[in-house]
Each structure stands twice: as structure tokens, then as C-alpha cells.
């Protein structure tokens, strides 16, 4: 229980710029283990860059990010890969590997060089395939899948990595409603039962409200607001951050905020 209290991520006064354009500006927050975080914000507000910094993909320019109490840059990549999995936005896969092989790549940080995958590796891969409803595709070349199928394969790959922390960049962007729920439910289940931490960028505010515990809202590279879903999700916030008018009501079924947009032209 004491473990639950200590933050898993601590981001302290982080800034980042590409050349002269500032993408992230003085961002500070800390994340607790066993929580589902939604990272919200309009296009170009810095969400992807923030995830990049949290996986040490970019050398950081200002500020400090510590993961499990240690500076993120000080981890070696393989160790970090056993703790943090990432599903990036980009779904391209260069060659036509079979689906099974792609998901098995999630076990890369655990399998010694030149060793064959162990029984545990295979079991975790098969479980992840089943959980993402792509088990029947396991022998298909990944390049022959639809966008939605490929997305599920990549989430399965990250689940097979079996890490305590999962970062996802728009994991439901190209999915239909059923598979969107499949992914969100699978993530939610892992947060609630296995106590992992999930940070996902999500554009669908209703979806974020239903599945996330806490929200982080970025606007123009700054952390505009963060906190529990009910506190953050207000019509003022939607107006200020997304420049859109909306009413927020409490959903009787989930007991979560529900967004009703007011379309200007109707």
C-alpha cells in the first residue's frame, strides 16, 4: 500500500523545443501507480512529445523526469523496456512479418540474444493475441491487415511486453466502437486487477471520461489542468482548451461526466 503512494513518474519543470518552436513549456506533474491517466489536448498541443520525453526517446532540454525515483535517462534501454511499453501513433511496419512474430517482439527485452522464446513468452503472446481479438490472424502477414487490425496487433505487442507502465498514443484512433471498447476494457482491467499504470492520449472525451481515473489536459505546450475526471471535465475547460461549446451532465449508467456538444451551425 505504501508502494501505491509513491509516484511512478515525476515530471518537474520540463520544456522541449524543436529548433525555435517551443512544444512543451514548463510542465510539472506526478503520476501514481495503478491509475489510468488520459492525456487530452487539441492537435499540436504537445501530447506525443510528452510521451516521447517520458520514454526517453528525445534528449530532454530542460527539467527533470524521474521514473521509480530515478532519472529516466539513466536507465539502460533494455531495463526501461521491461518497465515501460509504448504504442506509438504510427502504425507502419516495414516488412510483412506474421502477426505472431510482431507480438513476440514485445518479448524482446526478456529473451536473451540467440535464445529461443520460452514457454512463458509464448503464453504471454497468445494471451495478448486473444485479449485483442487477433488470435485468428496470428499467421497473417501484418502488412495485409486493415488499420484497425494492425492497431490491435500493436496493442497486443505492448501487452505481451507485460510492463508495469503502458504509454499509448491514440490507441483507438482507427478502431470501430466494439474494438475501441475491447482495448479500453483490456487496459482498464489491467489497471484494476494487475495494478499497472496506463497513460493514453485520447481524443474522444466521453471515452476518456468513462475509462480514465485522472486527466491531464495540455494546451499549447502547457499543462492546463490535471486531476480527477469529474473535476477536470467541465464545459469551461472544453471551451477554453478545445474552443468548443459543450454541456456536461452526469451519465446515469457509468456515473461519469458525459459531453454533449453544441454545434454552432445547427
Amino acid at each position, binding site marked *: 500500500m505504501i508502494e501505491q503512494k509513491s509516484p511512478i513518474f515525476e515530471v518537474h519543470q520540463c520544456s522541449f523545443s524543436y529548433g525555435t518552436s517551443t512544444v512543451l513549456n514548463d510542465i510539472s506533474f506526478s503520476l501514481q501507480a495503478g491509475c489510468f491517466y488520459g492525456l487530452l489536448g487539441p492537435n499540436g498541443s504537445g501530447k506525443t512529445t510528452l510521451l*516521447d520525453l517520458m*520514454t*526517453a*526517446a*528525445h534528449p530532454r532540454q530542460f527539467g527533470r523526469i524521474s521514473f521509480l525515483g530515478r532519472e529516466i535517462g539513466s536507465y539502460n*534501454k*533494455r*531495463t*526501461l*523496456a*521491461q518497465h*515501460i*511499453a*509504448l504504442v*506509438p501513433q*504510427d502504425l*507502419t*511496419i*516495414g*516488412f*510483412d*512479418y*506474421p502477426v505472431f*512474430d*510482431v507480438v513476440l*517482439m*514485445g518479448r*524482446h*527485452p526478456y529473451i536473451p*540474444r540467440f535464445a529461443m522464446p520460452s514457454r512463458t513468452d509464448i503464453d504471454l503472446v497468445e494471451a495478448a493475441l486473444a485479449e485483442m481479438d487477433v488470435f485468428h490472424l496470428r499467421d497473417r502477414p501484418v502488412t495485409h491487415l486493415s488499420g484497425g487490425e494492425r492497431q490491435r496487433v*500493436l496493442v497486443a505487442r505492448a501487452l505481451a*511486453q507485460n510492463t508495469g507502465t503502458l504509454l499509448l498514443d491514440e490507441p483507438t484512433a482507427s478502431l470501430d466502437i466494439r474494438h475501441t471498447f475491447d482495448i479500453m476494457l483490456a487496459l482498464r482491467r489491467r489497471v484494476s486487477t494487475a495494478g499497472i499504470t496506463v497513460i493514453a492520449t485520447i481524443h474522444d472525451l466521453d471515452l476518456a471520461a468513462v475509462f480514465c481515473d485522472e486527466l491531464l489536459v495540455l494546451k499549447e505546450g502547457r499543462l492546463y489542468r490535471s486531476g480527477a475526471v469529474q473535476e477536470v471535465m467541465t464545459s469551461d475547460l472544453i471551451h477554453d482548451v478545445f474552443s468548443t461549446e459543450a454541456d456536461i451532465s452526469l451519465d446515469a449508467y457509468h456515473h461519469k461526466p458525459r459531453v454533449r456538444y453544441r454545434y454552432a451551425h445547427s
Partner: protein
Amino acid sequence: MRRNLAILPVLFALLLLLIVVATGLGYIRIPAMQVLQILASRLVESQVNGELADKLSVVVYDIRLPRILAAALVGGGLAVAGGVFQSLLLNPLADPYTLGVSSGAAFGASLAILLTLFGIHLPTAWTVPVFAFIGAILTLMAVFSLSSKDPRMSSNTLILAGVIVAAILSAGIGFIKYMADEEVGIIIFWLMGSLVGKSWPEVQMIFFITLPCLLVILYYARDLNIIALGTKTADSLGVETLLVRKILLVAATLITASCVSISGIIGFIGLIIPHLLRMLLGADNRLLLPASFLAGAILLLGADTLTRALLPHEIPIGVLTALIGGPFFCYIFRRRQLGRNL
């Protein structure tokens, strides 16, 4: 992958068989058993009894075998380098030419030949390989520094940089040809590629460069698989992507440079072999790259034996591979497109 693993011993056995058969073929035909006897006696002790045996021994061991091994090593080297370039650049149509490495080697070699023509007498036997080698390495460095603004060294950036550098170099080669005036034939012959007259020192040079590079490449084959998922994903899976890319680019360039430096420009092997094997065996580099090496060795040795011993006149091997390989490639390329659209 396990299913297809049996292809490696099969290819290896085929290569050994082809080496023995090819050694027997030529102006003097020697039965395979005698070839094996001569090789065995030369390997055990350098003394051979009998005058005829002695003559055959020279033909087999000092004349044919070096060229045959050179053909196998060059073919294997070009194919494996092509496979690495394709996997690194995420482009199944990449080959040693894509990054301008071959053009760099050709420019270096042309320059060496030109210097000789202008009366700067350096022994061409080693200036051409050395200049070709330096040309290839300098080209890779130029491509690296052109792409260095892109922190991830993405494949698009590298390919564009390679195309730019190659275009400049081919203009340079054109200028050297123009300068060489009437002696341009020597440069053109070198550019067409040939394995005529290869000797043991050249075989040793390419062997001692290709083998360690090949081992390095196989060591990183699994990381190379993962790099195909994109840099971010590969990084998040614990692969030191930038480092692995650089190491593999250098290893593939060293192999290409050593091949081009002794054989001139031999096209299409580096493109076709890995491309075709990827269609047959799948994209797993742990299998694809060693299989490419063996298949490339078999193909180039076969083609070189064809032009050396079977055709009435010897055709430059680079011309032969392009003439056979080009149309064949058109065929598979077309079939693949049809397959996609169905």
C-alpha cells in the same frame, strides 16, 4: 522461422558442390574426384607428385580456385549487404547503390585509374581496390553527415542523401571518363565488373573483411527485425536503434566496399537475392541474411562459371548479371503488383 531453417544447410551444400564442379570446368576439364584429390593434397602438404598432377594442381589451386572463391565471396557479400540495406531503410528495393556506396567505390577506382594514365605510377593492383574502398567509406560519411540534422536518421533522409551524393559522384565519374580520353576503355571495363585474374591476396582481403562484418550483422539480426517496427517502437523495446543502425550501415558498407574494390560494379545481386528470399522465406533477418549470403554466392559463382567456362566469349560479369537479373526482376516486380491488387 524454424520451419525454414533447413534451407541453410541445403544452400551451403549446394555452394560447396558448385565450387567443386566449377573448379573442374574450363579449358581443361577435370573430373570432380580429381579436383577433390588435388585440393586435399594441397591442403595437407604443398608437395604434389607427378608432372601432370603438378600442372593440374596449379590450374586448380593457383588459377581457378581464387577466382571461384572471389566470385562466391563477392556474390555473398553483395547479397547480404543488400539485405541489410533493405531492412535498415525499410525499403525492399534498396541495395548497395541506394546509399551511393557503390558509386563512391566506382569513383575512387576511376580516380586511381586516371592517376595512372596521367603518369603517376602507383601499382594499380592495389591502388584501385584501396581507392575504391576509400571512396565507399567517404561516401557513407558524406551521407551520414548530410542526414545528421535528422536526429533519428530516418530511412527517407538516408535514401535522399544517398541519391544526392550518388548523383554528384556519377557526374564525377563522367568527368573522369572524359579526362581519360582514349584510355577510357580501362575505366569502362572496370565499371562493368569482372572477376578475371583474381588471386589469393584479393580473396584473403575480401574474406577477412566480409567474415567479421557478416558476424556483426548476424549478431544484430534480431534488433534489425525490430527496427522495422519504427524507431520509437524499437527504442521502447530496448533496442539501441541509432547505434545499431550505424553499426550495421558501417558493416554493410565495408562488405560492399571490399566487394566492389576487387570486382568492379556487379549490379542486381544485392537487390534481387534478398528481395526474392524475403518472398520465399519471410522477412526474419536471422534467416534471411545468412540465406542471402549463401544464395548470392551460388548465383554469382554460377554466373561467373557460365561466362568463364561455358560461353564461347567471356562477357563482363556485371553485364551478365544485369542482363539476366534485370528482366527477371521486372517479372517478379510485376507479379507482385498483380498479387497485391487481387
